[in-house]
């Protein structure tokens, strides 16, 4: 207790200095109001506990909790703003930068010490760098490569094959008499309707456009038996299900970004950001009248990707 202390002089400030006085002109009055806020906050938080205890409605929980904290918060802010010395106070801003000599010493330490050590043992430094380099590359394998399988040709195919029965979401086979003209149903390859891939990739819309065979485009004469046409339900823009059917306009509409596909004309997009027609699934009606696939889609379904031809 004998060391020297340098007192900071504040002799210029008197106790009556306005900057040390509260901002409130009537501190007692403000103090009373803040007290009311704190009491209200305390009561509300107690109510929150009670509401929780009796398992009250969520809005009662949130209201008591939120209002209580709001009152406490406003009270505390008011205490700080109106009852504490109003200031303003000042502090000096010291220059963070050091002198040129200090900086040189720092740089010199890095360059001379580190550089000296490395330059003298170039071989060791090179080998260490090489080792760490090899490690960082091999570390990428478990980090990245094992996260998932390579895509391969997964994106090019669906589960539709020659002769696959078309079923609805419940697994019931779709019969040629099921739909009236202007109706639509989402179909899946039989046995895949409950699988992730069946739901996400194979999903196809089946629309009955007319009562007689319907050709949507040249070369697809056999694809629309009895007026049934089937298109991939995956929007070619971003893969949302093309879930809206505008029956009057014969359009399939994607609700995500409003791409529209003309179902009578090979599902060529006539509005919105989709770049390609929906791939059409060639189908046929078998002897018993069930709708079946002639083959898989002739191109990749869904949005574009690099390997897509």
């Amino acid at each position, binding site marked *: 207790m004998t060391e020297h*202390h*340098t*007192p*900071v002089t*504040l*002799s210029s*400030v008197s*106790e*009556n200095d*306005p*900057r040390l006085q*509260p901002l409130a002109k009537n501190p007692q009055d403000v103090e009373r109001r803040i007290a009311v806020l704190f009491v209200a906050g305390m009561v509300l938080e107690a109510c929150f506990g009670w509401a*929780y205890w009796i398992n009250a409605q969520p809005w009662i*929980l*949130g*209201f008591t*909790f*939120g*209002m209580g*904290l*709001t009152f406490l*918060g*406003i009270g*505390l*802010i008011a205490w*700080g703003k109106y009852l*504490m010395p109003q*200031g303003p*106070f*000042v*502090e000096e*801003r010291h220059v*963070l930068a050091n002198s040129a000599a200090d900086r040189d010493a720092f740089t010199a330490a890095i360059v001379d010490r580190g550089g000296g050590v490395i330059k003298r043992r170039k071989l060791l430094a090179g080998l260490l760098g090489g080792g760490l380099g090899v490690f960082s590359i091999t570390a990428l394998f478990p980090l990245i*490569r094992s996260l*998932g*399988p*390579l*895509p391969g040709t*997964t994106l090019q195919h669906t589960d539709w094959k020659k002769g696959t029965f078309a079923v609805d979401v419940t697994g019931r086979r779709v019969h040629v008499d099921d739909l009236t003209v202007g109706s639509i149903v*989402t179909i899946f390859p039989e046995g895949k309707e409950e699988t*992730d891939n069946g*739901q*996400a990739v194979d999903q196809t819309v089946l629309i009955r456009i007319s009562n007689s065979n319907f050709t949507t485009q040249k070369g697809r004469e056999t694809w629309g038996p009895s007026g049934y046409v089937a298109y991939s339900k995956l929007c070619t823009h971003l*893969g*949302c*299900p093309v879930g*809206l059917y505008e029956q009057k306009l014969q359009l399939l509409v994607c*609700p*995500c970004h*409003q791409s529209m596909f003309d179902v009578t004309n090979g599902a060529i997009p006539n509005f*919105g*950001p989709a*770049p390609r027609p929906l791939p059409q699934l060639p189908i046929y009606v078998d002897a018993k009248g069930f709708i079946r696939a002639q083959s898989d889609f002739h191109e990749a379904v869904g*949005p*574009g*990707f*690099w*390997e*897509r*031809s």
Partner: protein
Amino acid sequence: MSDSSLTTKRAKKQALGPYGKLGQAVNELDERLGVAKGGRTFMDKIFPDHWSFMLGEIALYSFVVLLATGVFLTLYYVPSTALVTYRGSYAPLYGQHVTQAFASSVDLSFAVRGGLLMRQMHHWACDIFVGAIVMHMGRVFFTGAFRKPRETNWLIGVILLILGIGNGFLGYSLPDDLVSGTGIRIAFSITESIPLVGSYLSFFLFGSNYPGTAVIPRFFVLHVLLLPAIIVGLVGAHLFLLVRQKHTQFPGPGRTENNVVGSPMFPIFMAKTTGFLLLVAGVIGLLGATAQINPIWQFGPYEAARISYAVQPDFYMGFLDGALRIWPSWTFQSFGHTIPFEVFIPSVILPGVIFNIIMAWPAIEAKITGDRSIHHLLERPKDNPQRTAFGVAFFSLIAILFIASSTDVIANFFRLDLATVLWAMRILTIAVPLIAYPLTLRIAKELRALEGSSQRKTANLVTRNAEGGYDAVSAPIHPDDALTHHTAIALPTFITEAPAGDTSDTGVRTVER
């Protein structure tokens, strides 16, 4: 030690010194860690009093609420895509096959006491977090607070915004409801659109072709562990740099490049800011209590072949969705390859360009103006018309893209043709920033030329003179503005309202440092 005088209460008190047990504790702590000097300096740190400095605090405190409510949610949420039969209390879903993620999200809303409140608070806190960061960035941008030496803190802030948006999207995806599932599908397709590596990246991210079973557990780990850890670290760095470099301040009487004028950390700022934390938490609680957000039980579980209509993502994803809507369907398809420009440009290139411009802005501005000196005094937006005009134009572009994410809703609401709305949005996207720039420039320049434009408005006294003309005499300065005309004083240790009885000094104790 057997001295009887030590046993009396008074003697004990005397032995402890003037500051009693707290003083002893500080002694003990200081002997070990040397905290006294630094602690005192920290308590004396001056915070400028300006409302716009609160915006960052809102972001910080909503993040505190996010952490607290998020921990609660993890106790009940199950990150699994395994199918279960829903047998909870929400009747319309009873008996349906749903994923565990969805079932547990519905259960924690209805079966867990306070669960729905916590979920809604978490979601509201997220929206407020991202919104407050954007507002805070606006403050920093338009007042030039990002200039040297604070470029690094600006960069950290932008990264925090990106991480906030990213983690918001991940969290929004976790309940595995119909709406968020569609969002995940779009995220997969966007990843797929990257030339050369897209399909690899998307398979590695999802662990298989879309949808697979890994996406929910992976998003969960990213959402509750990896990204929050990075965010907490960066928030710490942000605050450390703020304390190290001290606050900026608006110019004013007694305020120079070499000082900071305002209220001290302890107790004034601490009282205000703790109160503000309670207020932010309280308001988020009230929102969670009264404003429904993301009612997943109404959307139903995600099924890849189903979709809902007129659904928008959370607001901070809006500009991306809008860009995807209005960008034309230009694609590249030949040589056996496809480059989906219609997706890649608006959803990968565009946000990349936007965020890179924002991150590089301090460097860009320094390059243009050649101003590489240190600034601690802020500019008002009118003081730098070029920057302000650029900022307004830039922000108006984002705003138009955001509005464009509701083309279908706008068309329905105003009974307009969808094509009309689409083309209007395309034109506005280009036109509005081009108009906003010169307009803002003009306004800022005229404001700058106007005397006293940064002062609070006071009523002018207008009198009619003998010739029939009018004379305006400006009224005296607003009392609140006059207050700032006190010159600031260095911080005393003390602060008692009434002088203590035993001090012979001038009310202020002498401080020994």
